[in-house]
C-alpha cells in the first residue's frame, strides 16, 4: 500500500540537480541516452547504505526485495519515488514544486492498491495496480497495471521511425540525436515520434508530436500539439489501441464501422482518418464552428495549423477527449467549454464544463 500523498524527499536538491543536468545533457525525455542511469533504478546487491556521492540519506531499496531484474523496488513504487513529488509528479494531486503542467494528467491507484488524493478516484483514468481487463480489449496485467506497461523504462531514443523526412541529412545519426519516441511510450506498428524540444527550429510535420519547446514547462498543454504525418493513421490511437483494441480502427473496420462515402454511420467514434467537417452530407461536424472556438481540444493537423476553419485536415484522436493518465473527471475526460479562455484550461478542461461541451468542440448539435 502506498499513499499518493506527496513524498517530500530529503534529497530534493539532489533530485533537482539530476533533473537539471538531464535537461541539458540529453534531448527530449529522461531515461534514455545519456540520462539513462542504471543506478537510479537498479541495485547490484540489494543494498544501499549510501548513495554514489556517499550521502547516507539518499540510498533506497524497497523493503520486500531483492527484486527481479535487480530493481531497487517494485516497479510502480520505484517510478513513484521520483514521479510522485517534485517536478515530475504523475499521481493524483500535483506537487507544489511542479513547474510543468501535466498534459497527460494524473494517474490514480486501483482499489486496494493505494490511497488516492481527494478528488482522484479509480474510475477517473488509468489506475496503477489494476488487474482489470482493459475496456474494449483483452489486455490485463496480473501483477497490476504498471508504468512500464506504457512507457519503456530504458527509453526509445532512436527507435522512432518517422515517415521519410527529406529534411534529414544526417542519416541514422540524426535519428539518434534529434528524433525520439514521445515520452518513451512503447510502440506498436511504429512509435509515436517527435523531435525533442525545438531542435529543428520549428515543427517537423513528419513526426507525430510537436513539442514546441524544451523548457521547464515542456510537459504542458500549451507546449504540445499533434501532427498527422499520414492522414489515414494516428500513431497515438495505434498506441492506445494496443490495449483498447475495439476503440481504434480504420473506416469500415468491424469494431469502428463507418463508411468512406460520407464518413458517417460509425459504430464507435473514429480516432483517425475522419476530419472535422468531413461529413458533408450529414453536417455532423463543422470547421466553421471549430474556428469560433476559444478553448479547443487537441486534434491532429497535417499542416501544423490547428485553429483555422480553412484547414480541412484536423482530425480528433484519443487525446482529444482523454488525459492519457487521467484526471478528476470520469474516464479521464477533458471537459472543454469552447467559449472559455485558453488561460482557464486545467487538467480537467474548463471548470464547470461537462462532457457534452467536449463533443461540442466539433459537433454542431447543441451549443
Amino acid at each position: 500500500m502506498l499513499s499518493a500523498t506527496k513524498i517530500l524527499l530529503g534529497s530534493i536538491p539532489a533530485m533537482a540537480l539530476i533533473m537539471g543536468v538531464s535537461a541539458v545533457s540529453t534531448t527530449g525525455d529522461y531515461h534514455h541516452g545519456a540520462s539513462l542511469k542504471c543506478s537510479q533504478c537498479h541495485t547490484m546487491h540489494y543494498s544501499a547504505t549510501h548513495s554514489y556521492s556517499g550521502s547516507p540519506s539518499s540510498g533506497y531499496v524497497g523493503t520486500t526485495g531483492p527484486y527481479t531484474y535487480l530493481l531497487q523496488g517494485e516497479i510502480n513504487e520505484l517510478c513513484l519515488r521520483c514521479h510522485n513529488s517534485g517536478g515530475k509528479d504523475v499521481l493524483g494531486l500535483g506537487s507544489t514544486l511542479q513547474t510543468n503542467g501535466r498534459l497527460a494528467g494524473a494517474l490514480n491507484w486501483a482499489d486496494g492498491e493505494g490511497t488516492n488524493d481527494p478528488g482522484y478516484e479509480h474510475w477517473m483514468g488509468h489506475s496503477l495496480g489494476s488487474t482489470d481487463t482493459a475496456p474494449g480489449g483483452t489486455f490485463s496485467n496480473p501483477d497490476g497495471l504498471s508504468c512500464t506497461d506504457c512507457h519503456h523504462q530504458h527509453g526509445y531514443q532512436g527507435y522512432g521511425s518517422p515517415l521519410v523526412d527529406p529534411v534529414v541529412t544526417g542519416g541514422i545519426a540524426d535519428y539518434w540525436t534529434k528524433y525520439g519516441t514521445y515520452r518513451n511510450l512503447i510502440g506498436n506498428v511504429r512509435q509515436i515520434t517527435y523531435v525533442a524540444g525545438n531542435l529543428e527550429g520549428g515543427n517537423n510535420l513528419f513526426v507525430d508530436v510537436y513539442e514546441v519547446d524544451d523548457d521547464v514547462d515542456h510537459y504542458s498543454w500549451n507546449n504540445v500539439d499533434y501532427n498527422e504525418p499520414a492522414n489515414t493513421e494516428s500513431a497515438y490511437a495505434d498506441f492506445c489501441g494496443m490495449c483498447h483494441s475495439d476503440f481504434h480502427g480504420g473506416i469500415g473496420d468491424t469494431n469502428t464501422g463507418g463508411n468512406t462515402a460520407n464518413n458517417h454511420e460509425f459504430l464507435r467514434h473514429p480516432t483517425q482518418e475522419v476530419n472535422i467537417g468531413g461529413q458533408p452530407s450529414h453536417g455532423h461536424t463543422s470547421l466553421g464552428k471549430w474556428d469560433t472556438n476559444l478553448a479547443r481540444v487537441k486534434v491532429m493537423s497535417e499542416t501544423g495549423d490547428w485553429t483555422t476553419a480553412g484547414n480541412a485536415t484536423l482530425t480528433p484522436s484519443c487525446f482529444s477527449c482523454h488525459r492519457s493518465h487521467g484526471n478528476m473527471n470520469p474516464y479521464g475526460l477533458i471537459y472543454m467549454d469552447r467559449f472559455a479562455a485558453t488561460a482557464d484550461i486545467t487538467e480537467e478542461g474548463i471548470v464547470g464544463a461537462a462532457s457534452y461541451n467536449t463533443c461540442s468542440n466539433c459537433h454542431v448539435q447543441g451549443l
Partner: protein
Amino acid sequence: MSALLLAALMAVLAAPQDPFRAGRAPRRAGGAGEGRATEQAHHGERLVCSDCHTVHNSRGGQPMRFDGVSMPAPVLLREANPTQLCLACHSGSYPLIPDVLGPVSYTADPAGGWFAQGLGLPNAHGHDLSPPSALAAPGSTESFTIECASCHDVHGSSNYRNLLLDPPGSADDGDVRVVVDQIIAPNGANAAQVYTPANLLDRSGMGEFCNSCHDNFHGRSASEEGAQRPWLRHPQEVAIAGAPHADFGHWSGPIVNRVRVETPTDDLVPSVDDRVSCLSCHKAHGSSRPDSLIYADGLRRRSTCQQCHDQ
C-alpha cells in the same frame, strides 16, 4: 335511469379541471414568440450526448446499450435504432420522463396523447409508429414511415417540443415555426405538470406543421379548406369570435374540459383571439379514440364540436 345519467354527468363535471381553461389568466413562463426552447430536454444545455450516444460502446467493459446488446449500434446509438432509443426512456420506464406509449400513467391527459402499444402494428387511434412499410398520409399523396424523428429533431430545435423546422412532407414552405408557451417549464422532475394541455399556451404554427404531411387539411385553396365560408374542410386559424357558424358566447362560457385552441395575441382563454388548430380535436401521437380524436366529455365526439358550435 335519469338518476344514473345525472350521476354520469356529475362524474364528468367532477373530472380534474384546469383552472386556466376555466378562465383564469396564467403567468407565462416565457415570452411569446419563441416558446421555451432553451428549457426543453434534448436541446441546448440539456442536449447531453451521452444520453443517447456511446463513444466506445463500453462502460467498464460492459455494453452501453439500453437493450443490453453487446454489439455497437450505428451512429454510436445506445439502441438498435433511433425510435427504440427514444422509447428506452419514453415508454414509462422512468416516471419523471414523459411516457408516449399507452397506457400512460404519469398524467391523466398528456398533451401529445400516446401511441398504441405494439410498434409496427396498424392502429386506428393515431399515428402508426415504426410501421414495416411506408403508409399513405391522409390528405396527401405522399407516404411516410413514421418514427419519432419524423416529427422531432433528436438534437433539439427552437420549436415547441423540438419539432422539426423542416418536417418530412413536401407541403411546407421553408422553416415551420411552432410557437407554444408554457406556464411551468420542465425541470426534469415535473412531467405531470408540464406535458399537459393545462400548461400550454398555443400561439401558432401547429397547423402548418401538420400540413407538411397532411397537406389537404390545411390552407385556403380549393383543394384544402377552401378560401372562405362555406368551407370545404374544417378551417383552422379562424377566430371563434365572429365566426358565423360558431357560438362564441358558448365558448366563452363555463365550459368543462376546454379543448386546446391557439391564443396568438393574449394569455387568456377564452378570449376573442382564440382559434381552432389541429390539436383542438386531435392528439398528436394518438388517443383512445378513432383518428386520434379528443372526446371533450370523455364519452362523445360531438362534445368536442359542441364547445364551439353548440348546435
